[in-house]
């Protein structure tokens, strides 16, 4: 890889051991991915929490190691606008969820230490709904598997799939290796998906992603559909595609910025394959994630985090109702959005039902291991898939059905 003199100095350790480690990571990664050079990034979304849920039950030495590394990253500082992904810790519910007290303290210390470092500890998986809005063509380094396809596909900005080490390196160095979706030739559609069923809810778009992700994996699908998505539908689509597959980018013909036409989506080339998604596939996708309605104990909404529009809608659906005895309703959103919802009165309406609003985190991470064996309903195929792996019985349905399943009979 061609390095500038400054990059070489960092690699030699002249800018400190932490920057050197970061540089080593991205150079070895970039070389393996056939990157020719490092390029400046202007927007980073970083996984910035210790190994979190995975670490539950690990020794204090292990917890301390990752905490120290994050503190070192903060001391080094971010060289460009940087937001952080969901934390593994919910400061409001940590006792109820039996989170290790040391980890909670560590998290609070990280928040305090972040001031002035350039790391914006927003702890949400929807940076794009709280003001991080890179423009078309902007070079980003986004972690969080659901954010990555949103960044590439919906915003038209450019990021490869990032994880903790590479996004942290991008923040601290302001650099990322140039390969994959950063290059024009790796943004062209590969598989044509002909959707001939009407997608009526955001969760239907999630179902489409869940089914197609299993077939297309890391490839870039191009969706041809007469259904018109709203932005939240695309949030669901990308999240589920990246969960069962791992794609960094997709196109929806006529909707997403790099696919104004079918021809443009494929850059005039033939698709590598054509897949049909009809009523049968939609129904079987829901069928795979189904439970008996009377067994549902917990409803989880907000994966990816809910935005203001969705909270407004949920407050309307929930107004005047109560969560049934023995059942739980969890609503997950960004801190900023919860604050706005409080001012507007939505939060009061939602919490009056007995629902809990979780910010900074989400059940797939904060409740790790806590809900083993519980039967859960959610509107998100991504959340559903990860709850399945945690030993839950899971159903995925649209928001209204989810809420109805845990609410008492309507009394308004």
């Amino acid at each position, binding site marked *: 890889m061609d390095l500038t003199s400054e990059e070489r100095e960092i690699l030699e350790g002249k800018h400190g051991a932490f920057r050197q480690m970061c540089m080593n990571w991205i150079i070895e990664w970039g070389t393996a991915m056939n990157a020719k050079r490092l390029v400046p990034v202007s927007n980073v979304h970083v996984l910035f929490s210790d190994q979190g849920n*995975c670490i539950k039950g690990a020794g204090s030495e292990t917890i301390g190691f990752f905490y120290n590394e994050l503190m070192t990253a903060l001391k080094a500082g971010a060289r460009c606008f940087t937001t952080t992904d969901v934390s593994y810790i919910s400061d409001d519910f940590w006792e109820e969820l039996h989170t290790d007290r040391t980890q909670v303290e560590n998290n609070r210390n990280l928040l305090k230490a972040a001031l002035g470092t350039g790391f914006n500890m927003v702890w949400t998986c929807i940076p794009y709904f709280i003001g991080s809005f890179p423009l078309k063509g902007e070079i980003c380094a986004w972690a969080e598997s659901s954010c990555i396809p949103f960044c590439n596909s919906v915003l038209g900005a450019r990021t490869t799939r990032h994880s903790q080490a590479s996004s942290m390196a991008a923040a601290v160095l302001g650099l990322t290796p140039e390969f994959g979706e950063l290059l024009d030739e790796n943004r062209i559609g590969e598989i044509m998906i002909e959707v001939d069923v009407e997608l009526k809810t955001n969760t239907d778009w999630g179902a489409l992603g869940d089914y197609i992700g299993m077939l297309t994996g890391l490839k870039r699908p191009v969706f041809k559909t007469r259904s018109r998505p709203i932005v939240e539908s695309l949030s669901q689509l990308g999240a589920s595609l990246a969960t069962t597959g*791992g794609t960094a980018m997709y196109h929806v013909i006529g909707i997403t910025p790099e696919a104004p036409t079918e021809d443009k989506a494929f850059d005039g080339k033939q698709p590598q394959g054509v897949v049909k998604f009809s009523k049968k596939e939609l129904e079987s996708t829901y069928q795979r994630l189904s439970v008996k309605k009377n067994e549902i104990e917990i409803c989880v909404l907000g994966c990816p985090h809910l935005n203001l529009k969705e909270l407004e809608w949920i407050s309307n659906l929930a107004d005047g109702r109560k969560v049934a005895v023995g059942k739980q309703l969890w609503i997950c959103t960004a801190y900023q959005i919860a604050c706005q919802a409080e001012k507007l009165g939505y939060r009061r309406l939602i919490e009056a039902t007995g629902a809990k609003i979780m910010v900074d985190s989400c059940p797939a991470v904060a409740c790790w291991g806590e809900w083993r064996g519980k039967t859960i309903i959610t509107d998100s195929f991504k959340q559903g898939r990860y709850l399945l792996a945690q030993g839950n019985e899971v159903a995925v349905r649209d928001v209204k059905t989810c809420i109805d399943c845990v609410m008492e009979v309507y009394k308004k």
Partner: protein
Amino acid sequence: MNGPRIVKAERIVGAEAGGVALVADETLSFWGEFDPLTGKVILPGHPFYDQNLRSKIIVMRGIKGSSGVEASLRLAAMLKNAPAAMINIDIDALAVLACVVSRIPLLKIREEDLKSFSTGDILKIHGDKGYIEIVHNNKLVLCMT
């Protein structure tokens, strides 16, 4: 029994490794579907469910899903619960990063070569030389006994 067999492979990360193979025509997310504290796959219904990946050579289609994969594998590697090597058909950028950071050799094989491997095989990886040696073929032994 046939002698050692050779499968061509492209070195992506690392070079040498050896161990017992776990093989499936599947993908896995190393965050959320794998527990780094034990090394076990926790996703019910996955071919590797409840199997320990510690020191094994994982032969599968590739890595999918969460961007937590690198953090999770790095933790597993620190706790000595990580696989000895990974052999994939589809190379995800995150798999590469995870293997770089966790010091796990990663090789790419051709799709048609996946069937050359079976669970229980003893493999020797020669990344720099571009091949994998099947030192002990489990399928052949099973046929003989």
